[in-house]
């Protein structure tokens, strides 16, 4: 469904992405792993329209979205859970969720989605009228995910969902990601925690300083000796 071809992105003079190509098929979990500064977040920010590529194309189900403004891309069916969660701290939990559904019009359907996300994340229901900034890290991560799902995306981009969370919470978050995927949402997951990411993904790409150096089935990648040495600490 998502096809990224020969993507080149610059930050000023810095050539951050040097011709990245990959794809995500319907129903898949695809992960991009790599070290800090490899360009993982840059890829997600470019797909979401926050950054403009200098070269290359991004296609969603055959539609070119490379130069679409960020707000249009959300209504095309791509939502992002940004790095560091980026909860709107001065907004209540419920207001955060309503912002997730900003592009949708049908109030009854939005309400139904809200009920569903409260069912998946009962903690959020309890904290409905609390300010987003008062939540714990794990709760904020759940809120960020629930917020992105409020747009009913066909493709969910997740940027470092395990960042700063305890191992127990990381397990929980990854269990939820698999759950979301089972309900039919394709997932593009960016992670530094390669082990966890590879354990749930169908396919994986390894990114090094702006280029993809390795790709294949997640299980194959997990067995690759170089990957083991560099990212899995084995």
């Amino acid at each position, binding site marked *: 469904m998502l096809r990224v071809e020969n993507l080149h992105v610059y930050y000023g003079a810095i050539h951050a992405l040097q011709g990245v190509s990959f794809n995500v098929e319907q129903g898949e979990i695809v992960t991009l792993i790599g070290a800090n500064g490899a360009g993982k977040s840059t890829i997600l920010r470019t797909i979401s329209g926050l950054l403009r590529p200098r070269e290359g194309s991004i296609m969603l189900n055959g539609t070119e979205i490379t130069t679409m403004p960020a707000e249009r891309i959300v209504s095309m069916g791509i939502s992002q859970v940004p790095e560091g969660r980026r909860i709107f701290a*001065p907004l209540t939990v419920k207001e955060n969720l309503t912002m997730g559904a900003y592009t949708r019009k049908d109030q009854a359907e939005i309400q139904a989605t809200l009920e569903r996300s409260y069912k998946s994340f009962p903690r959020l229901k309890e904290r409905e009228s609390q300010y987003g900034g008062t939540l714990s890290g794990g709760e904020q991560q759940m809120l960020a995910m629930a917020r992105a799902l409020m747009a009913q995306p066909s493709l969910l981009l997740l940027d470092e969902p395990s960042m700063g969370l305890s191992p127990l919470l990381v397990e929980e978050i990854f269990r939820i990601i698999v759950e979301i995927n089972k309900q039919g949402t394709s997932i593009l997951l960016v992670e530094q925690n390669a082990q966890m990411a590879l354990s749930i993904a169908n396919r994986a790409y390894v990114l090094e300083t702006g280029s993809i150096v390795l790709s294949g089935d997640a299980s194959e990648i997990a067995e690759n000796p170089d990957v083991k040495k560099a990212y899995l600490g084995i």
Partner: protein
Amino acid sequence: MPGRNKVTKKTLSAGQRRGPPLAWVGWSFLILLAVVTVLYVGLKAVANPILFLQNLLDGLKLGFVYALIALGYTMVYGIVKLINFAHGDVFMVGAFTSYYAVSRFNLHMWPAAAFPSISPNLAVVLGSLTVILLSMAVCVILAVTIERVAYKPLRDAPRIAALITAIGVSFFLEFFGALPFVFSARFIPYKAPFSTHAWYIKDGIHPIISGQASPDNTISFSNIFLIIAAASILVQVLLQYIVKRTKIGIAMRAASYDKPTARLMGINVDRVISFTFAIGAAFAGLGGVLYAIAYSSIYTQLGVLPGLKAFVAAVLGGIGSIPGAFVGALIMGQAEAMTMGYISTPMRDAVAFSILIIVLLVKPTGLFGEPAQEKA
């Protein structure tokens, strides 16, 4: 915007609270100043309570007008971190629009002309509302145009660039307006779309016959005062509703907190910013018309001092905070009215801007403001 201080209070470290050495000199001076002011005004109030109440009422009138302008300053700052110095001139354009509508085109007479059978009072209300709405609409178009042409290209430029541009736009509006074929640089007597009535209070409320002064030792007020107070409070309530309850209002708060993430939600941030400028300008336009009616003469520099004082009010209340702007404006109104009543009229501006200096020295975040925070 409201609510955020709850979250960020923790980040104030003890180091930020500690002032420079000898800070106590400044503090004791300020406390002394506050005590003297309160004592002085208090003694005057006891000596002549009626005069004090009259000053209080005059201060409220000023304060309510400042509140209408200050809201625009504070909302725009909240979302684009820009002090929009052209805001006071938008206020001026509102006043001039209503002047042309009334004096040149008799717009306020249209209900009486179109429906001769309706009651004259209703015709006046409808006519005046038309004039006010037209002025608000002109201000909205002007402010949104300014934003698109002058500020939007500078959205990613250093903040000082946008600030200087705002000052430039302000001068442009004032001096373009002063050209002979625009508004001209003269003082122009302003004809109100409705007639003013005044009353005085002494054993009940009595009307003042126009052209006569109110009797000594009475409190007087006019229908303009009542309209200004009602409009200002209504606007405040309306704005609270918009910001707290409506989708666009929540989006305003989201965008003011984190623009890239707001865009990831599908919020069109540019449109939200335009909307913010638009409502700020609408309220300034309303304020401009009411100010012109209350003070009955207009000129192209009309918006300068009220604009700057509303800016001080917004800073005093904590720039970015909507209730803060309202409270700050009421305090500014009182400070000015008391100065005019008890010291001398020319001192009003000195006192107003001294407040700015003191706020910036003592509590730069203002009464309801939140500490500036840099997001990682």
